[in-house]
């Protein structure tokens, strides 16, 4: 990849086009930790720059890039976990719980429903969360989502359906306490 500047220039343009979507996906893979997502994205670009990650045209560029991001995030997560366990056993908290370093202002700006939604998303298993993110956030088909997740389409569909059901259930439980109309049937006759 380094030897061919034209190819890397072309790739760079494509990466720039997909950058915000890639960042969103990296955020999802890093449990909404912004600094981790940035680090992962940098590592991914570095891998591409050094030719360690090579696009061979076997799938779409977006699918390939997302698969690389997912794999890199998993590796970084494992490394971080190992470092935490090795260096500071007394502060043993899995990075999953340390994660969300969101700016308080941005949290306040969000609607109440959005906050509950984020909370519900966090309770989902990783695969289900990934399937929902790829389909709803990135507008990928189930086939593409399966490619990114490295699973069969049937498995991806199962994760997607279960994720949707779990999300609906958790949001319904939350609405009981806060009176948010989730899953309300549209009633045109109502005034």
């Amino acid at each position, binding site marked *: 990849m380094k030897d061919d500047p034209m190819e890397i220039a072309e790739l*760079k343009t494509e*990466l*720039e086009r997909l*950058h*915000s979507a890639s*960042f*969103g996906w990296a*955020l999802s893979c890093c449990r909404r930790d*912004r600094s981790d997502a*940035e680090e992962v*994205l*940098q*590592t991914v*670009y*570095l891998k591409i*720059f*050094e030719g360690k990650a090579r696009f061979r045209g076997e799938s779409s560029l977006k699918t390939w890039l997302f698969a690389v991001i997912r794999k890199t995030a998993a590796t970084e997560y494992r490394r971080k976990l190992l470092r935490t366990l090795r260096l500071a056993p007394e502060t043993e908290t899995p990075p999953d719980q340390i994660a969300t370093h969101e700016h308080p202002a*941005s949290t306040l700006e*969000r*609607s109440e*429903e*959005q906050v509950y*939604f*984020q909370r519900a998303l966090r309770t989902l298993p990783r695969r289900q969360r990934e399937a*929902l*993110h790829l389909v*709803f*956030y990135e507008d990928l088909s189930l086939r593409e989502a399966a490619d990114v997740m490295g699973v069969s389409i049937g498995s991806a569909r199962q994760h997607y359906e279960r994720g*949707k059901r779990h*999300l*609906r259930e958790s949001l319904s439980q939350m609405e009981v306490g806060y009176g948010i109309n*989730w*899953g*309300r*049937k*549209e009633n045109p006759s109502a005034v």
Partner: protein
Amino acid sequence: MESIGDEKRIRALFSEVRFADEQAAPSFTATWHRAQSRALRPRRAFNLSFVTATALLILAMGGLAVWSRYTQPGDMKAVAATAAANFSVKISTQLDEPREDPEISNAAVNAQRRLRTPVRSQALNVARNRQAEQQAKQLANWQSPTSSLLASPSDNLFKSLPQLNENANEMKSFLPNRSNDKEK
């Protein structure tokens, strides 16, 4: 109908998140340049754990080499010392006799010293052979302490063959008369 409404709602919530993320995303150029600078940065040549493991391995191998070097000659010395102790009198008489002669020259002493090594090795060989012979004799003469318990007065019956002809003759008187049966 409800599920379609749910999907729409989920999609709307996700698009809200996407919008917020797009606003907060770092610029591509900055990220790309940081990645490039990381690529150009000289990396640490060795991994710390790898270095530690290699150092430990080298130390272990060095220790083993030193240990093997200093233990093997020691064993040989011990064998030589025991053998030499057995024949010290004989060797000393053989070797020390010329020394007692005051007229003997230095050249003769050197020559005897040169001879000392084959003589000593020969003596060691003799000692080893003798020891081996003694061990062989001891092994040949060895008897189990419980062997006497296996002996019994009826050993002859078990060790000798039975005389079958005599027994058959004795048994004839007890057998029914077959010729009489056929006549009937």
